[in-house]
């Protein structure tokens, strides 16, 4: 297995320092499709270096919010602020270079590529190689690729424990591993804020626990702000610093996990009835598992 023993001196550059985590705020965002309001006046924020979860029943507008944040949908009104900068009108690639990375609910890996190439892709926006250098694989291109390879190997592949699959095509991997590769790819973007769309959906207990550990480690060791949409209440209540609850495209509650759990509106949204005690019991039970 490739391991470099002697680091080359030219690999150290300004790029290798990691940027500080970014804060994100969604301000009064409304999104209409034709006559239907998918989101109305959604406001919440993610503090730098924290984990914020967006929860809500199916169809509440969680993924719509994510799509507004990452730039697929343009809100009909309202603003998205990234570290105080208005990014509402920026195209997705531009947001990516500002430090926004995301994973997808239904895994969006590139099936024709190996795990390694998929991860490398994440770095795209930060690289400089131009066409001519690429064609001849001239000095800067080769150096940049080597540095990337080193970073991916030493910081990401080791960290996420996926050395054994690095040369496999992603299409042969299990669901849990694909999710992990997607996280690896997002990390390769050197994100300041990471948007995770249902990071543990469809995973078994063990895989979920691994993923929870990785998410916490990313926050702690890499200093990245995390915003996630998740259905798994146990995970949400365990690792989030802050929870925002959506229903019918509106924010119905926001706060620390415990506060949200106690909110009768949330219970109503989930159960269709106003019995907070029953919900609390259920949430507590899930949180305990």
């Amino acid at each position: 297995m490739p391991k470099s023993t002697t680091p080359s001196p030219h690999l150290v550059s300004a790029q290798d320092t990691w940027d500080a985590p970014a804060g994100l705020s969604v301000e009064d965002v409304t999104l209409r499709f034709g006559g239907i309001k998918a989101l109305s006046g959604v406001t919440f924020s993610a503090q730098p270096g924290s984990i914020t979860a967006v929860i809500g029943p199916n169809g509440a507008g969680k993924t719509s919010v994510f799509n507004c944040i990452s730039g697929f949908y343009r809100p009909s009104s309202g603003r998205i602020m990234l570290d105080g900068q208005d990014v509402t009108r920026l195209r997705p690639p531009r947001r990516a270079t500002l430090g926004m990375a995301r994973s997808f609910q239904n895994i969006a890996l590139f099936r024709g590529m190996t795990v390694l190439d998929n991860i490398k892709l994440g770095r795209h926006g930060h690289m400089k190689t131009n066409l001519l250098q690429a064609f001849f694989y001239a000095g800067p291109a080769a150096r940049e690729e080597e540095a990337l390879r080193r970073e991916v190997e030493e910081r990401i592949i080791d960290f996420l424990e996926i050395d054994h699959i690095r040369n496999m095509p992603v299409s042969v991997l299990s669901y849990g591993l694909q999710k992990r590769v997607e996280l690896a790819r997002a990390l390769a973007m050197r994100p300041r804020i990471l948007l995770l769309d249902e990071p543990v959906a469809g995973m078994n207990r063990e895989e979920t626990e691994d993923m929870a550990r990785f998410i916490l480690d990313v926050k702690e060791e890499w200093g990245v702000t995390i915003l996630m949409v998740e259905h798994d209440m146990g995970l949400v209540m365990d690792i989030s610093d802050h929870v925002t609850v959506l229903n019918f495209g509106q924010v119905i509650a926001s706060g620390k996990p415990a506060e949200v759990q106690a909110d009768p509106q949330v219970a109503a949204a989930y159960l269709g009835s106003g019995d907070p005690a029953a919900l609390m019991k259920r949430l507590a039970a899930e949180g305990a598992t």
Partner: protein
Amino acid sequence: MIIGTAKESYRADEALLTTQPQRVWMAIFLAALVALPFALNDYWLYLACLVAINVTAATGLNILTGFTGLVSLGHAAFMAVGAYTVAWAETRLGTPFFINLIAGGLVAAAFGILVGLPSLRVKGLYLAIATIAASFILHFCFIHFDGITGGATGINVPPLSIFGIELATYFRLYWVIMPITAVMVLGAANLFRTRIGRAFIAIRDRDISAEVLGIPLLRYKLMSFSIASFYAGMAGGLWAYFFRVVTPESFPLLTSIFLLAAIIVGGMGAIIGGIAGAIFMTLAPELLRFGMEWISPLVPNAGALLSPVRTVVFGALIVGFLIFEPQGLAEIIQRIRRYFRLWPFRT
């Protein structure tokens, strides 16, 4: 998994040829390319040059269609643009060969960007048909802008000359065409070791999520179009020096279909696919010629069957590969390689 490929550095691991047998085979192959012209007669040299030109064109189309997922049925039109540019520069400006050739590639690339613009709005089949449309419009221009293109009769191209040495025989042309082809293929292989190539594949596999990873779709789609057209333009330029006349009828729609068939048969999205496909599809009709010669004592009038049989075989190859071997010859080559592993170095 092949054992025994430990490498000392990431740089070695990022190299094009990572195993010893690969390097040895490549050396043998290159030596064969150098030896070839001394062993072949004019007919086979002619075919070798033609194969090389088609390899360049097919590799370009493979970058666009195989790697970026944008189907073009107008590739021949870009070859024509390159060929006309070279013919025009050669006869009007008299600039040196290499400048003409690069200019041919660049002008074709510019047209490629123009034709790629609809890829903003349409994709898949619609884009393929838009490229057919563009090639018909270009064909019209070739006939009617006769101040530049020589109208229906086209332009006769003087022989290629470098430092006053005239390169008119196939033997001499080979030494220009083959190295350029080698560089173009190497360049394409290099492209896919870097972020640009990866971005193309990302666009092919899932263009929407590529955007989230910071890949500007429009820019990269147009870049792919321009690179593919550059390759086509270079191939067309070589073609112009090779056939020495360029007319509006030199690059029909059939050539575009031929090139697409070549990468289908060879294997889309693999550099070796473009090469194998172009070699196979260029030589297959010639092999049929010999096949027909062999059966001619048995079948009356076999010579007269050649052309329709070729047409049938051409179609059958496309259909057959798509149904039974969609990964093309590249996959077959892979299988053979896996079978032999490290042969002949370890058995």
